[in-house]
């Protein structure tokens, strides 16, 4: 095999090399290396992102267990962009732990990203499992990164326990699948399901339960709000998007591509989980007084909306789910970045900290409003098209009840998003000084704004891209 920039696995190897480099730089620099390491990581990620654009589509390795198809490349770009936005935010963190332990922080983020990148290409049960573990274990460390805080340790421990149990459930389910098919290749799943083996169905159901933990779908969502509340906000913005996207990638590989013509048999299960996830996420978000917990529960609801797209088990359904992921990336990460800006100034994640924000910092309040409207699904921002297309795909499959439920709860979601908007625009605060926004945090917010408004005004190219990516899976 000759070396060329498009060969599969090159981006992953480069990413790991970057992670090791970050570690070495962290060891040899004295004092505060946070800026230096953060910039090194960001520049390295730009290079890795470039590699995904010159990658040869359709190349594969190890008897098809690692493929570099359109879908994998789309997912990899999504993960890298999410990481870059998050790192822009975390560069502004002034906490002493980040100053001293920056190398560990960035190494953990990069090694988790290696896991996600491999996962996007994995078409083998063993590889999927190992990639999932590589993605998850650094996440537990990062959640408990501010280790002197007792609530942080508690949240990290909860996340760790739930995460390892879910990995065990995944491994148990996979063992049944291997027992029936005698192969770890995903190509073996479809024929075995078509054969109607009950043990196979049980194995796949268990596997789905384990994966539901990873994407925080009902009834496996309890870890999310605690972890979000305790961890540092730029990391949480990433935690809420990238690992969830990775979980969806694995689900699509297993239940759409792997199951093949039998994938429709999972429709009732996925539709039921989608419905319950939307109801739980949205209703639990209403009483929250902490903005990060509110965004955590609303994030759970968004996972439910994406599951609606999956439940259609059609090319357009999967495509619209991918489109939803992109819209969710910009909307959700943008909202978290505004939360970070407010928290740095007010030292509070309470919703009351947003009182009078429109008078104090009109641009910041406007940005937050746009992100919230996108999450709520108002026309001409990205979230509107995302919800509309997902509903559309589900209606094509006759899932009228699910779409009706989703539409009703969208109104509930708008209610709690607008509760935040009311504090920003209608209620007044004693303080009138503007909230200082660090330059890089501002840049992250602007990138997310461009994404949300750009997709909202001109969704065509993104929809075409999602449709093209999804069509290769069917």
């Amino acid at each position, binding site marked *: 095999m000759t070396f060329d920039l498009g060969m599969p696995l090159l981006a992953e190897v480069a990413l790991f090399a970057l992670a090791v480099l970050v570690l070495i730089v962290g060891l040899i620099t004295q004092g505060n290396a946070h800026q230096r390491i953060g910039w090194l990581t960001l520049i390295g990620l730009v290079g890795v992102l470039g590699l995904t654009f010159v990658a040869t589509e359709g190349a594969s390795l190890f008897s098809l267990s690692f493929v570099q198809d359109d879908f994998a490349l789309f997912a990899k770009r999504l993960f890298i962009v999410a990481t870059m936005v998050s790192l822009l935010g975390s560069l502004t963190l002034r906490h002493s732990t980040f100053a001293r332990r920056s190398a*560990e922080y960035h190494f953990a983020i990069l090694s988790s990203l290696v896991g996600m990148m491999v996962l996007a290409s994995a078409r083998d049960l*063993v590889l999927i499992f190992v990639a999932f*573990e590589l993605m998850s274990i650094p996440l537990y460390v990062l959640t408990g990164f501010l280790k002197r805080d007792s609530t942080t340790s508690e949240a990290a421990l909860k996340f760790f326990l739930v995460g390892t149990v879910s990995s065990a459930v995944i491994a148990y389910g996979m063992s049944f699948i291997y027992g029936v098919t005698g192969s770890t290749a995903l190509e073996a799943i479809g024929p075995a399901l078509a054969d109607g083996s009950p043990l196979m169905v049980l194995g796949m159901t268990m596997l789905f339960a384990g994966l539901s933990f990873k994407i925080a779908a009902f009834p496996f969502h309890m870890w999310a709000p605690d972890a979000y509340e305790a961890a540092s906000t730029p990391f949480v913005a990433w935690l809420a998007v990238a690992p969830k996207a990775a979980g969806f990638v694995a689900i699509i590989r297993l239940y759409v591509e792997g199951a093949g013509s039998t994938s429709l048999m999972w429709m009732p299960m996925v539709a039921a989980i989608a419905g319950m996830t939307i109801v739980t996420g949205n209703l639990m978000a209403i009483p929250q007084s902490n903005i990060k917990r509110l965004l955590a529960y609303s994030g759970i609801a968004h996972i439910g909306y994406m599951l609606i797209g999956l439940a259609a088990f059609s090319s357009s359904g999967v495509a619209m789910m991918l489109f939803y992921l992109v819209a969710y990336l910009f909307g959700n990460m943008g909202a978290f970045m505004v939360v970070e800006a407010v928290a740095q100034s007010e030292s509070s994640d309470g919703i009351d900290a947003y009182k009078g924000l429109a008078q104090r910092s009109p641009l910041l309040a406007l940005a937050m409003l746009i992100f919230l409207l996108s999450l709520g699904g108002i026309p001409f921002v990205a979230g509107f098209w995302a919800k509309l297309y997902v509903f559309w795909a589900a209606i094509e499959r006759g899932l009228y009840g699910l779409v009706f439920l989703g539409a009703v709860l969208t109104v509930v979601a708008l209610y709690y998003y607008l509760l935040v908007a009311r504090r920003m625009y209608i209620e007044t605060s004693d303080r009138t000084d503007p909230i200082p926004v660090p330059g890089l945090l501002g840049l992250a917010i602007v990138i997310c704004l461009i994404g949300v408004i750009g997709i909202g005004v001109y969704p065509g190219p993104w929809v075409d891209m999602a449709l093209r990516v999804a069509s290769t899976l069917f």
Partner: protein
Amino acid sequence: MTGEAVAFYALSAMLVVSALAVVLSKNLFHAVLWLALALTGTAGIFLLLDAEFLAAVQLLLYAGGVVTIVVFAIVVTERLVGETITQTNRRIAGGALVCGALLWLLITTVLERPLATERPIMPDDLTKAIGESVLTRFVLPFELLAVLMLAALLGAIYFARPEE
């Protein structure tokens, strides 16, 4: 009944009893000793299925390595906390319900379509075959495990080191 069947049922009985003892014994240290027995019993099952390599790994890593580390962890934390740690079993009814439901599900599923009783054709030297597949088809997950180890080690060191 063949000798193999007798050995299987004996090992299974040992496994079920020791596994129940792991979760039911109040004393954490006793639970770990029962766990060692359960892991050894699993190795016996592997041996019965002609998987000698797996049985050896099971004994070395789990019954040997993991149990030793857990014993160390108990000794060290008991000294730190200054009291004997007991396993609490307040939610035993719920746990039994979930386990019973899962057992019922598994039994009915297997009975619905029994698994093949014939053994698949195996290579003569199973250990060699495992080694070869780990370095050919499964070389990527194998290498990825090295990255995983590095990340996990760094994470563990990060939490364990005292703050300066």
